């Protein structure tokens, strides 16, 4: 059985102002115990599921780069407990402020073949607003060092729709980032999450409320700029350099499947969007397997504690009934430019997509949000910006 494996590393030097992930600053002392717990959890999984074949590993956070050279230990455990596919994609998320040539070399040697750097912005004031610990200069250095260390699959994360951000700032950031010639870009519109510092600042009027129309302008500007630069948008927030130039923004991948764009689309994340199975290890990590989804205890202390006792660190488990699996498959699959094909739907559910969702498809097409040619449903160019309106309709009542 092939499976994607996610490894969560919840440590950060400082929490970013917008972040509401399961991350913690000031717990770095737990690092060794945490690595031991990860290794225990991997063995428990192997004991339960047998020798699975891992096609992708994604080490995310938090700040996984804070594990330092111990990343290699974790990957060794993965290899020991499971079968790592020959061409497995192994991604490590890294903060540009936490890398150096030695570390990068060690990670590359340990098998990491895709590096995802959290860049967010090329503008100093925006980096400060977001509470990032690195400068733009450090981003440039990190990229240079990564290339030197042999990373030929580099992804950079950016954010837009920030308080006070102008279209000119955003275009500046895009130009600067394109000059670094990454293979992959993730562009995230800021969501002000409740309980974050940034949301509190906006609520208090310290930071201006972002204008959603301006964010839409930024998104459209980025679509044009990246298309012209040879990037294919294969998901709502993700672009990959292509082997060929895309004809227009939001083009259907040439072979109808994301993989046909080239080798740089995130294979690990594709597993999520195609609603395939994955296993997650680490504090708060989520897993989806055999119609069930569960997640681990959030706090690293609690997570470590249970594993030290040899117990499963699961906090909550959810059974996904078949109708919901179909709805979620649409919710996730429609995020991709490849959309959802009737053939895949039939193969997976033994049902006709056109029949199951006939009235919904008609309504969304009329609203100009969905394209449907009888064999494939995908968001229209406008529908990309209004995905929630589309996804919600596919969820069961």
């Amino acid at each position, binding site marked *: 059985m092939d499976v*994607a494996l*996610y490894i*969560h590393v919840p440590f950060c030097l400082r929490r970013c102002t917008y972040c509401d*992930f*399961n991350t913690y600053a000031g717990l770095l002392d737990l690092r060794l115990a945490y690595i031991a717990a990860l290794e225990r959890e991997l063995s428990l999984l192997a004991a339960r599921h047998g020798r699975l074949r891992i096609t992708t590993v994604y080490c995310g956070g938090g700040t996984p780069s804070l594990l330092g050279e111990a990343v290699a230990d974790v990957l060794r455990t993965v290899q020991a407990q499971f079968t790592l596919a020959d061409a497995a994609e192994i991604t490590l998320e890294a903060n540009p402020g936490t890398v150096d040539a030695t570390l990068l070399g060690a990670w590359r040697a340990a098998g990491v073949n895709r590096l995802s750097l959290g860049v967010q912005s090329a503008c100093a004031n925006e980096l400060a607003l977001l509470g990032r610990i690195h400068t733009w200069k450090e981003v440039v250095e990190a990229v240079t060092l990564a290339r030197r260390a042999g990373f030929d699959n580099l992804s950079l994360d950016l954010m837009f729709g920030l308080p006070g951000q102008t279209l000119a700032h955003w275009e500046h950031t895009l130009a600067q980032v394109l000059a670094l010639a990454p293979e992959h870009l993730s562009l*995230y*519109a*800021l*969501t002000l999450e409740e309980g974050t510092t940034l949301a509190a600042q906006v609520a208090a009027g310290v930071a201006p409320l972002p204008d*959603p*129309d301006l*964010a*839409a302008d930024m*998104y459209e500007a980025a679509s044009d700029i990246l298309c012209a630069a040879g990037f294919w948008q294969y998901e*709502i*927030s993700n672009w990959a350099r292509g082997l060929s130039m895309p004809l227009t923004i939001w083009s259907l991948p040439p072979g109808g499947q994301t993989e046909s764009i080239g080798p740089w689309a995130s294979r690990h*994340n594709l*597993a*999520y*969007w195609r609603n395939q199975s*994955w296993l*997650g290890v680490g504090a*708060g*990590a*989520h897993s*989806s397997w055999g119609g069930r*989804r569960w*997640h681990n205890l959030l706090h690293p202390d609690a997570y470590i504690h249970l594993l030290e006792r040899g117990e499963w660190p699961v906090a909550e488990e*959810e059974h996904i009934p078949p109708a919901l699996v179909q709805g*979620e498959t649409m*919710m*996730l699959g429609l*995020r991709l430019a490849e959309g959802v094909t009737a053939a895949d739907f039939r193969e997976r559910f033994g049902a006709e997509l056109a029949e199951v969702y006939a009235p919904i498809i008609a309504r969304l097409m009329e*609203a*100009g*949000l969905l394209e449907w040619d009888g064999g494939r449903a995908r968001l229209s160019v406008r529908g*990309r*910006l*209004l*995905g*929630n*309106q589309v*996804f*919600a*309709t596919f*969820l069961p009542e």
Partner: protein
Amino acid sequence: MDSRYIRNFSIIAHIDHGKSTLADRLLEVTGTVESRKFSSQSQLLDSMALEQEKGVTIKASAVQMHWKAADGMTYELNLIDTPGHVDFAYEVSRALAACEGAVLVVDATQGVEAQTLANLYLALENDLEIVPVINKIDLATADVPRVTHEVAELLGMPQEDVIAVSAKEGTNVEAILQAVVDHVPPPSGADEAAPLRALIFDSHYDSYKGVIAYVRLQEGRVTRDTPLLMMATDAKTEPVEVGVFTPDMQPVEQLCAGEVGYIATGLKTVREAHVGDTVTEARRPASEPLPGYRAVKPMVFASLYPSEADDYANLRDALEKLQLNDASLTYIPETSQALQFGFRCGFLGLFHMDIVQERLEREYNQDLVVTAPSVAYQVVLTNGEEIEIHRPADLPDPSTIQEVREPWMKVQVITPTEYLGAVMEIFRRKRANLLMTETLDNLRVLLTFETPLAEMVIDLHDRLKSATRGYASMDYAFDSYRPDDLVKVDVLVNKDSVDALAIIVHRDMAYDKGSLLIRKMKEAIPRQLFEVPIQAVVGGKVIARVNVQALRKDVLAKCYGGDITRKRKLLEKQKAGKKRMKQLGNVIIPQEAFLAMLRLDED
């Protein structure tokens, strides 16, 4: 009981001047109720929870007390409580008609207020003997000499006749009872042999005994064996029981001329035993009913819709039950293309509307959408026919209208002079005419305005209170229907007229109100997948337009393995929120948008 030893009286006061506390104290000193009973329930006459909370008496009540006066004789004192709000002016007038005297209570810290005057005038119209009382003399802020002077001046009485009490502490309350015995005349013309004539001054519904009519007997006698006739409604019934309130219902053999008590009529709805009607004997009816009866007509109308269409039947049941005890509440089923199935309800006034709405929500657990209130318009058509409309949307085509008349009210405001300018400005914006300015003392003035009820129903009271920091008081009464240049402003959402949003306004204000209304609508309507024009239209002509811009961006930026459940729940929540909104053609409108009109004067 020898009618010479009967005294029937009311307590009248401005809201919060301590009427109910005084009533409690009277029940206590007469031994009608033991003092310890007061500990759990602060005010006995206000039996509904809502009344206690709002601090006003909604339903009148009547209690029989027995008290030994200075002359050594025991008197039967019937205390008839009156509703404390102007919306129930007619009920107040009937309660007062059942009395010979009234205890006028004025707060020693506040002095005479608008409702003090209004109630006093009603009492004087009914030829009642007034017993003036100043209450709350225990408070540090009481100004007894000033208020005593003010009250004596108002009544043209010597200051010594004004009784200073503290109802809260029980100080001097027996002096009130003695004054009632001394000054309030006993019932006159109490001919027990004449055919029965009893005035209904209140009623409530009892599920075992039917409608309980609260009555004052002018002539004759009634026992449970007297077949009865309600003279205005022609309803006939055999009573189930007659009795008095002590304050619980206590059956008696008979009630005689001059007395106050209840008749358990066995009637099934309060509409068959109207307040103001005369009860007589079915076999030997009186030749004339008692004077002063009139059918109370609702003046303020609003539509009530269930938030969820499925709850329509529940709402209907709740209204039905509420109406059992509230003859002045009217409702008829109504359909609106936007709000679907609901009821057009008529109320005596805004306060009455608030109470009904609150009771529906609180006692009957109804989740309501209430449209902006409107008034009853009289429309004379070109063919001479006259109709009354209760919904702005029903105003006929202008070409068929000869004249539109709207109700005007006479409003009295007492305000500290420092807020005079603010009060005048509020009324200026309400199309009001200032009729009179009288100086009460060097601190306060009494202003008399006339203003259309339609201008009052929105927020006059709240604005008055906030502009005067709560110091102004107000009272109002219907004056007359008057023609004016009134037009209907229709609101078109995405080219479709929305009935529930139509308003009737003076032609000179049509543009201002129309454009304000659609701007408020714009704020309330979420952006949709397409641009939604909102237009204000008068007589087929668009007078103002705004657009709700199309929604451009609504998408979750991140959706990875870690948050699929969470993101899905977010979408489900979004979807559920949408379901609660009202669908109008392709446009989804939240319920708040239907209340945009209520905020027309905010700017």
